[in-house]
């Protein structure tokens, strides 16, 4: 193992290190949800939505990652049709399915952002502020 592989650490015992990134993804999700629920500014709420979106995408890409035999992740793109290259590819490639899912999810996230920003713009036009406390007329 050379190159990037040399930098790899076997952190702590067994699975714990392999689970740490998941915990970070969950943490990011929670930060995003916190911003959405507790913040009182429309832009902050949008920021929270973005962060929650990142968290889920991060989680999905982590589930598909594998180091491969070379010690670094191979992109699921074949560049050479030769047999040896294909074999190496099959050995090293990461899981392409979560990547396809994330691509869809990124696009959906962009769509939601476009809509929510236009709502925020309209609300600003009506109230002259991004502050929810000034806006909230509705009662649950």
């Amino acid at each position, binding site marked *: 193992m050379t190159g990037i592989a040399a930098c790899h650490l076997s952190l702590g015992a067994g699975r714990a290190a392999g689970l740490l990134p998941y915990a970070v993804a969950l943490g990011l999700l929670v930060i995003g949800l916190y911003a959405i629920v507790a913040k009182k500014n429309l832009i902050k709420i949008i920021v929270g939505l973005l962060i929650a979106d990142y968290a889920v995408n991060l989680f999905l890409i982590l589930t598909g990652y594998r180091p491969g035999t070379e010690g670094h992740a191979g*992109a699921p*793109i*074949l560049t050479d*049709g030769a047999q040896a290259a294909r074999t190496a590819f099959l050995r090293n490639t990461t899981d392409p399915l979560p990547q396809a899912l994330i*691509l869809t999810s990124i*696009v959906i996230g962009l769509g939601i952002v*476009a809509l929510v*920003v*236009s709502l925020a*713009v309209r609300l600003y036009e009506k109230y002259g502020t991004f502050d929810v406390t000034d806006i909230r007329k509705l009662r649950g």
Partner: protein
Amino acid sequence: MTQGRHSGLSSVVKDITRIVAAFIMLFGIYIVLYGHLTPGGGFTGGVILAAGVVLVVLAFGRDFSQRLSLTERAASFCDSAGALGFLVVALLGYTVNTFFMARFIHAQAPFRLFSAPAILLANLAIGAKVAAALFGVFLAMAVWRPGPREGRLS
């Protein structure tokens, strides 16, 4: 940006845009066309194309872009056309073996532009759709929004 909303930005920006925008759009088209061989695809390329068009509109202003018919109306039209195009690619499956979204053209030898014709077509449709959609929403939301505009009863 406040004074140049209709006639565009300064001539330096215009000159640079003239050179850069073409490359950006070329790159966008490349990303769309070669999505099945290299990273990227219809969506990514579409976003890049949209960015190129937005750059032109920002630099040259409203009057120029209207002369090129880079308007919301055109954007909305291309948006629908691209989406319908993708749907048609999907429905073309019915013409061959009655399967929704089946590949109506067989896969060819790999590593060529035409090695996956159905994917290429789908990428083109998505690219056009995404570029038009994002350009349109950018126009509607960000560019002229603070300025005065007549009520539009579409």
